[in-house]
């Protein structure tokens, strides 16, 4: 996993609530057996005017000029701001894979669906929760200033705005540690292999029916 320390990037606004993972990456693209290459189909149904197909060339497809990521002012954006309950619905990790593959490193929203939130951290993508009022302020700032960029400092847990404001944010200590170091948490869990074996042995003893084959 890519480590995340400090990131500065252009902000793109996704001004709708309850953006679901079907919207982030429609189901036909879930047929891939890879982890990469989902970026061109991020927000496919909003981004293009036709229906996308997996494994197809997207370069000649008609773009929806009204969609935010198609507007030149947001070219190269790597910070996405969104409204409440971002990432609801399906557990597909293809959603953070698509955001990351497109170039996003940070999402900022008032709230997220639990599974999506969790999936982001496994993929070097930082989901930040800020109050609705602060997020709303960011939407206004972005629309008012072309090229609006934010700097996100994970170590300090601060967002730095162009007008030198510091916005603090919360992040779970363990997730922060993994993200800062780019750690894959399987390796960390396996450091506790003895504890797992001990628990398992006790469980096999007390609840043997959980270990039956069909």
């Amino acid at each position, binding site marked *: 996993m890519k480590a995340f320390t400090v990131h500065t990037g252009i902000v793109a606004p996704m001004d709708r609530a309850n953006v679901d993972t079907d919207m982030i990456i429609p189901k036909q693209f879930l047929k*891939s057996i890879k982890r990469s290459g989902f970026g061109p189909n991020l927000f496919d149904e909003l981004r293009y005017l036709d229906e996308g197909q997996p494994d197809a060339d997207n370069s000649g497809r008609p773009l929806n000029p009204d969609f935010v990521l198609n507007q030149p002012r947001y070219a190269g954006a790597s910070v996405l701001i969104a409204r409440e309950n971002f990432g609801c*619905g399906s557990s597909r990790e293809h959603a953070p894979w698509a955001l990351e593959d497109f170039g996003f490193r940070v999402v900022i929203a008032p709230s997220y669906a639990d599974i999506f939130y969790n999936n982001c951290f496994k993929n070097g993508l930082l989901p930040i929760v800020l109050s609705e009022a602060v997020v709303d302020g960011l939407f206004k700032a972005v629309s008012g200033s072309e090229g609006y960029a934010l700097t996100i400092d994970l170590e300090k847990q601060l967002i730095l705005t162009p007008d030198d404001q510091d916005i603090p944010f919360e992040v779970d200590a363990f997730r922060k540690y993994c993200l800062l170091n780019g750690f894959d948490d*399987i390796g960390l869990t396996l450091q*506790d292999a003895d504890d*797992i074996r001990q628990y398992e042995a006790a469980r096999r003893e007390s609840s043997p029916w959980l270990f*039956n084959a069909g």
Partner: protein
Amino acid sequence: MAGKTLYDKLWQQHVVKERDDGTALIYIDRQLLHEVTSPQAFEGLRIAGRKPWRLDANLATPDHNVPTTAVERESGVDGIVDPVSKIQVVTLDSNCDEFGITEFKMKDQRQGIVHVVGPEQGATLPGMTVVCGDSHTATHGAFAALAHGIGTSEVEHVLATQCLIQRKMKNLLIKVDGELGKGITGKDVVLHVIGIIGTAGGNGCAMEFGGSAIRSMSMEGRMTMCNMAIEAGARVGMVAFDEITAEYVKGRPYAPTAAQWDMAMAAWKDLVSDDDAVFDKVVEIRAEDIKPQVTWGTSPEMVTTIDATVPTLDDARDSAQRAGFERAYDYMGLAAGQKITDIKLDRVFIGSCTNSRIEDLRQAADIAKGRQVASSVMQALVVPGSGLVKAQAEQEGLDKIFIEAGFEWREPGCSMCLAMNADKLGNGEHCASTSNRNFEGRQGYGGRTHLVSPAMAAAAAVAGHFVDVREF
């Protein structure tokens, strides 16, 4: 000291190790695998040179991509026309073969939708932790199990370590007391709940369904409710253990027998929330208030009752929902104030991990019996949840009832719930669907989904528009 909730107990029983930062290593008793969210997890194991921690904790079956016509299914995986879908199913087969994981392959009668197969096999048992790379894993909580969906990285984590790193959630109780009216099912209850608390109402919570109406509900009804806990934002849905749970589990292939059964029953009896347990939040609902539900919009919370009209902007709770309503009217081709019974259907889908079990099919068949699908309906599909559900339905003659009424009787799979196979809606088509999500494009590009119970879907197929199943 206050008593414990069912979730508190299940959590506590599975803690391997608590960490200083408030997270815990939680042991996973069962992982279900399917073809869509597992290939990258197996690939991760291979790259890292890791082996599955405990093979017999895993059970796999392909479901999302499998075709549902008898002709295509005849030749198993070779019958999958779409080459991209085929690769995914072939990959699951080869991964399970390579790592030694039990898989019910396409030609196996036990194949089906993971969330139907697990309970049906007794592979889902009370007191277990159950995970799967699918958000509808909450279904298994109906067995007083702690079950939730995970992403692919966590699928790999569970394969490699048999554990997950978790933070304890909050306790939410949905208490439904009283008696459900005639024709009101678990589907109507859960849609009613989502209508009240919203799609984010359960975020961060483990949601237990309790109250007298739940106690008298069948396992199928309970599974339908827990299945859709995620549509209210709760990763976990649960129902306490009781005689109905035991009755369902007994005699299934993976279920304990003889002395182990008695041992298990003694342990399972405690899988209830204590009378003095404290929940962070309680939502009380009167069963008598629940009417047949129909979603009109593009989020499960955009739901109303069969006798109502499409809500107006004045009904929205805030500006975000107003904006959502406006987009939904446009996408769904509906007007505020329009009667729900005036919505005409192009297709009908009875199936999915929400509603494809034997009781669901019986309820739909009851309505379909001796009637005909309206000529204006292009297609009405019935897709059983597993090969065993299909066989049971055929033994009861339900297939004949459906076929005579003009429904198509298909092979098991996820089918039109998310249209990863050939079963999908055309642009602009309205569908009465027993599935779980009415998101934009979910059932096909430009498709318009209305979520309902199996009986409501069957009635809509016959009438060609939504009708009140209580008056049918």
